[in-house]
């Protein structure tokens, strides 16, 4: 067979496999969403609480540092440019709008995908290759209800909460840079920050955060539950989770922005 035809066939196979994987992941998501009604039963409630703790509390340290420095960098970069026009007092608006519209949910999504998403993929992947998932299936315990649903709920609930935290810290970080490096008084920064930001900006940002949480949970759980080939497969599932989540956060983030602002 000639080279172009072979390459075309290989490309087609990759597309087909990707579509199959995406369909499979959406089926898993749909099934898990249907099980959300069971999340308030005592035993499921405990598992959801554990996942909320892992997703929220254990990620706070890294989110604190990243959010704070994101706000500081934003303030410094925009402030230095605005200073050329004598408009550095407007950094409050710039930092606030960029944080709540884009950077808050985006940075939180990336951090959670890299820390929580990869951990979920590694845990479920290890369970798959050591036959723990098969054991659950044989016991008629649906993995989508027992494992996926609590992680989905935890990520969908914690992502907007963490995003609000990221937004606040980023805005505070920007204010500190404004006050210490650019000569913008804190009161002027706050007045400027609250003057132009709209409720819509906050809601769209939080909507993005929920969607990113669902994306991370779906990708991580699907990659974990479809792991093959032992330890190598677990590594591959973890890597794929981070890559696919990052790409989807970028693409879906753009689509949501376009949907609400154009």
């Amino acid at each position, binding site marked *: 067979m000639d080279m172009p035809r072979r390459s075309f066939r290989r490309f087609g196979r990759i597309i087909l496999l990707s579509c199959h994987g995406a369909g499979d992941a959406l089926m898993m998501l749909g099934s898990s969403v249907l099980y959300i009604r069971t999340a308030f039963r005592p*035993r499921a409630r405990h598992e959801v609480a554990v996942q909320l703790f892992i997703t929220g509390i254990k990620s706070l340290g890294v989110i604190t540092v990243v959010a704070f420095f994101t706000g500081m960098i934003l303030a410094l970069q925009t402030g230095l440019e605005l200073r050329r026009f004598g408009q550095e007092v407007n950094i409050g608006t710039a930092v606030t709008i960029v944080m709540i519209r884009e950077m808050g949910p985006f940075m939180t999504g990336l951090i959670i995908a890299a820390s929580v998403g990869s951990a979920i993929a590694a845990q479920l992947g290890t*369970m798959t290759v*050591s*036959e*723990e998932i*098969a*054991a659950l*299936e*044989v*016991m*008629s*315990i649906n993995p989508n209800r*027992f494992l996926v649903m609590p992680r989905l709920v935890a990520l969908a609930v914690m992502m907007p909460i963490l995003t609000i935290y990221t937004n606040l810290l980023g805005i505070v970080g920007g204010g500190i840079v404004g006050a210490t490096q650019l000569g913008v008084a804190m009161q002027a920064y706050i007045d400027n920050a609250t003057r132009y930001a709209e409720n819509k900006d906050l809601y769209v940002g939080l909507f993005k955060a929920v969607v990113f949480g669902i994306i991370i949970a779906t990708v991580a759980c699907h990659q974990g539950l479809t792991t093959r080939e032992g330890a190598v497969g677990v590594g591959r599932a973890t890597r794929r989770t981070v890559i696919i989540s990052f790409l989807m956060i970028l693409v879906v983030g753009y689509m949501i922005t376009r949907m609400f602002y154009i």
Partner: protein
Amino acid sequence: MISFEQITKTLGGKTVLDDVSFEVPRGETVVIVGLSGAGKSVTLKHMVQLFSPDCGTVRIGEDVISAAKGAELERMRQRFGVLFQGAALLQWLTVFENVALPLREKTDLSEEEIEKTVLDKLRLLNMEDAVDKFPADLSGGMQKRVGLARAIVMNPEIILYDEPTSGLDPVTARLIDQLIENLRSELGITSVVVTHDLHSALAIGTRIMMIDGGKIVENATPHDFIHSENETVQRFLESQYITRRGSWEKGMQTHG
């Protein structure tokens, strides 16, 4: 009880099971032996639809499990207990929680009833002192015993064992053999055991089935199995120093 009807299964381009048919009668222990990669575990996994056949039918009594889905499949699977090769215990749950898991998830029993049932099963396997330990704190043999306690906690009609004695010391291996035999003789449980260990197979099996190259090359009582004229069977027996006269007869006396 379990019936395989012309099952064919291909995995990764290789035919693992090739038109395989056999039956496991109620209350018997059928041991499946064979070389690594012969299709033993794949056969076992078809019984609980962890694999679906490319063609053919797997029946559990009157139920066709190979075609079952959803709630129907769940109902059929509840007739089984399965001991996996690596025990497959959930690592973040204690021994007690692992054994209690099917009772908590699939029954309406009170916590007191669950505790009593779990402790009874763990006592049966001499594991009652390990209730608060995590699987990572247990040896391989102890994990297998906990896995067996979990497999029998719902009082299943059928138990499937995937390499129950692999990696165990001979004393623990014989303890597991004895438990499998007791479950059959005292409770009438139907068992299917996959193993490489022919000494164990001859001690616990009411029938022994050998799979080679995706086909059944022998399916006989232990006595007939060691007297089989099949060359593959003979080579397999010789590889484990089992001859028609001698070591197996000694083994029979040892195992009672």
